[in-house]
């Protein structure tokens, strides 16, 4: 879905670049023309190839224009994520309604000017519940990402740098983790840990460790054999300092880009688990549990599950779009 979403943005971005720079030297216009004509996959390689020929002054401008974040799709995604983060930080700035206490007489009202998302079965404002639920949902996603990133990177680093038996053992372990569907693994972990948002976050984080370990290991293997690392070793640098000063900084880029891409997936997984009833206990609002609570009213109150569900969908798509933009940005910068 995000792949489909990026294509038009690629094309638009490229066309704008050529329109702004009508008199730019050959390589740039050639590059952008071919970008506009080719598929998204080809666009990436062409624009990379075009870069060395770019003139110094116009090139910087073109690069800024072509920066992945400058594309409209990515801008919208950035806006969505900004708004949602603001919801999480200062929910009261966006809604004055009480997310916990409703007016029972006003239950199951459809969306209106007074209640943008309608009301739930106890007469609570659903928009207020969605906004106030953001903090908990995003917090859980962030904790999950930190766990996955931290543990995964460490495993990948050790496996890639030490190699040999250690590598074999760690990678077979990640194979096992990768063999189990992520949500199933999360379910198993959360069943052991018990209910609660933090526990859901841990469960989701654990399920994503393997992916990060794999990417980190690949990057470490690439960096480890680089000549500057060899040079550092020959110059007498200790292993620890080589790892900290050369390997980690150079391997971190793709892993961090992966983290932003995974963020969307993690938000979805956290919502899925809280949908299944493992998350926050009532009356605390949380995205997944809001969708779950509306299930019994789908036939009579479409807005109950639909609108909070749409918010989750938009945030997941936006996080994915941003992640891809960062990934591309990272490659362009390298």
């Amino acid at each position, binding site marked *: 879905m995000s792949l489909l979403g990026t294509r038009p943005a690629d094309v638009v971005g490229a066309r704008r670049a050529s329109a702004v720079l009508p008199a730019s030297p050959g390589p740039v216009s050639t590059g952008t023309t071919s970008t506009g004509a080719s598929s998204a996959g080809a666009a990436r390689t062409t624009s990379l190839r075009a870069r060395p020929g770019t003139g110094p002054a116009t090139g910087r401008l073109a690069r800024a224009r072509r920066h992945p974040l400058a594309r409209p799709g990515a801008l919208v995604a950035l806006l969505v994520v900004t708004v949602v983060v603001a919801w999480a930080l200062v929910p009261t700035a966006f809604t004055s309604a009480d997310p*916990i*206490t*409703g007016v*029972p*007489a006003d*239950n*199951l009202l459809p969306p209106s000017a007074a209640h943008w998302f309608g009301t739930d*079965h*106890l*007469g609570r404002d659903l928009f207020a519940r969605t906004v106030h639920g953001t903090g908990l949902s995003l917090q859980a996603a962030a904790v999950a990402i930190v766990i996955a990133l931290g543990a995964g990177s460490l495993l990948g680093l050790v496996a890639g740098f030490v190699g040999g038996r250690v590598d074999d053992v760690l990678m077979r372990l990640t194979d096992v983790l990768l063999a189990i569907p992520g949500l199933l693994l999360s379910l198993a972990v959360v069943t052991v840990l018990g209910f609660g948002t933090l526990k859901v976050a841990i469960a989701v984080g654990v399920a994503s460790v393997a992916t990060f370990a794999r990417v980190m290991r690949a990057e470490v293997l690439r960096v480890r054999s680089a000549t500057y690392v060899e040079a550092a070793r020959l110059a007498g640098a200790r292993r620890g300092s080589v790892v900290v000063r050369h390997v980690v900084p150079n391997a971190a880029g793709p892993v961090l880009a992966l983290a932003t891409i995974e963020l969307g997936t993690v938000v979805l997984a956290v919502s899925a688990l809280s949908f299944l*009833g493992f998350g926050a*206990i*009532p*009356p605390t609002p949380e995205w997944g549990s809001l969708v779950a609570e509306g*299930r*019994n*009213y*789908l*036939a*009579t*109150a479409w807005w109950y599950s639909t609108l909070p569900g749409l918010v989750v969908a938009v945030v997941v798509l936006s996080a994915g779009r941003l992640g891809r933009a960062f990934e591309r940005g990272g490659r362009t910068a390298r």
Partner: protein
Amino acid sequence: MTSTVDRRRTRYRVLAASLLAPALLLAACSSGSGDPAAGPATSATSTPDTATATPGGTLRFALGASPSGVDPQQVGSNVSIYIARQLADSLTDQDPATGEIVPWLATSWDVSDDLTTFTFHLRDDVTFSDGTPLTATTVKANLDALAGPLGASAPLAASYLGGYTETRVDDEHTVTVVFGAPNAQFLQATSTVSLAILSDATATADPAARLQGEVVGSGPFVLESYTQDQGAVITRRDGYAWASEVSQNQGEAYLDQIDFTVVPESGVRAGGLASDQFDAVGDVLPQDVAQVEGAGGSVLTRTNPGVTFVLQPNVTVAPLDDPDVRQALNVAIDRQQLVDTVLSDAFKPATSVLASTTPGYTDLSDDLAFDAAKAEQLLDGAGWTKGTDGIREKDGAKLSVDVVYAPLFTGSQAVLELAQQQLRAVGVDLVLRQLTPADQQAVLTSGDYDTYYYNVTRADADILRTQFSSAGRNVNKRAADDVLDPLLDSQLATADPAARADLVAQAQQEIVGEALAIPLFELAQSIGVAGDVHGVAFDASSRLLFHDAWIEQP
């Protein structure tokens, strides 16, 4: 333990239903009217419904929650009983209209004046679905097991047998049950599903295996299969001819088969009924009524007798060890709002700790009227002052009360969320702790709760003794006292109905007065049935009976 011969025959019958339908109708009629032992019943009471009843067909029923098993004697939840009740018969039956006890497996009975000796004269033509006959020894085996080893996993049945001394086999079809103390509720208890009579083999079988389906009864249906958390299939018992007079159909059941499927979402159940995936659905909630009726169906309702849905406080731990705090909770709950907002018209606000359909119920609605000001006053007086977040505090401790509940009734969570909102308005924080039924039972034993949310269905006021006596289940965890316990014990020894009702009324006043329970609402069975389904009936305990049910055949 279901005989394979029997099963095969049943399946054959299902396949050949269309061919055999006229013959079956004849068989049903003849076994009903031609049986002299059927009691004073009967076919005379047939309504036009039964006159045109067409046998055959499969009824597809959507259950609102997972059954805990299919053993009639061990299960307690309504959804479990929907299945289990069809598999077994009891010694007596209770007329849902009058509350009168009428013959079923026993044709008559004698009760001694001191209420300690009950002699039952059994029918001599009853067989279980494995072919073995019902004898006095079978009844003894059942009651001995329930009063002994099985009692631990069949708490309701065990409570009905309090003071059990022995069962004497007088002759092949006469049996005498002896108690060490008067037991006024026992006759009604023999009509319940908990004291249903199962075959000799089942009586001695492993309790866990019985829950999973190793059950042989004499009921109008036989268990074909049971899959935990998914559902069950039951098929008609051939040759069934010993229905009680409460049943309009005196012969075999009309339906070939009933498929029970667990569908936890009420909206999906209603949608399933509307799109003809189900013929009947349980627990229809207010938002689904329009959909059921719009599809040509109707909603059958009946209030469950027994203890209403209550928050029963553990009086040994703070803050609910203080009667004033408990009393404040009682008047802080707006019961009418609970019913209006999240339940349907079928449900009633609780007006006592007993539901209004229970014999001996007394109206205490004045004591349970919503009065937030009084609640605030009581809490202020008890030293709880409002903190900055609106929740009251005392000596640094928040006025936080937890409630343990199991999702046995679809509407429970919404009810508790609204109760939580009502209590927060007076500064009490109600914390919801959802548990599985098994975990809830374990928590009850450990006492690790502030309030326990449940209901118990029983058409006899003795259920108060079972739940509230310090010697009974004692959900309150209270010590023995000299007011309530004697009341609960003496009603059990009182034969005169008026005198017994008086004692029961006093017990209810004492329970509500001390706020040993915070009644919420009266559970009602709310069953959606499709337009072409007839004869689905409630028994005296508001559980479903399918013996009279039939589906219009094309």
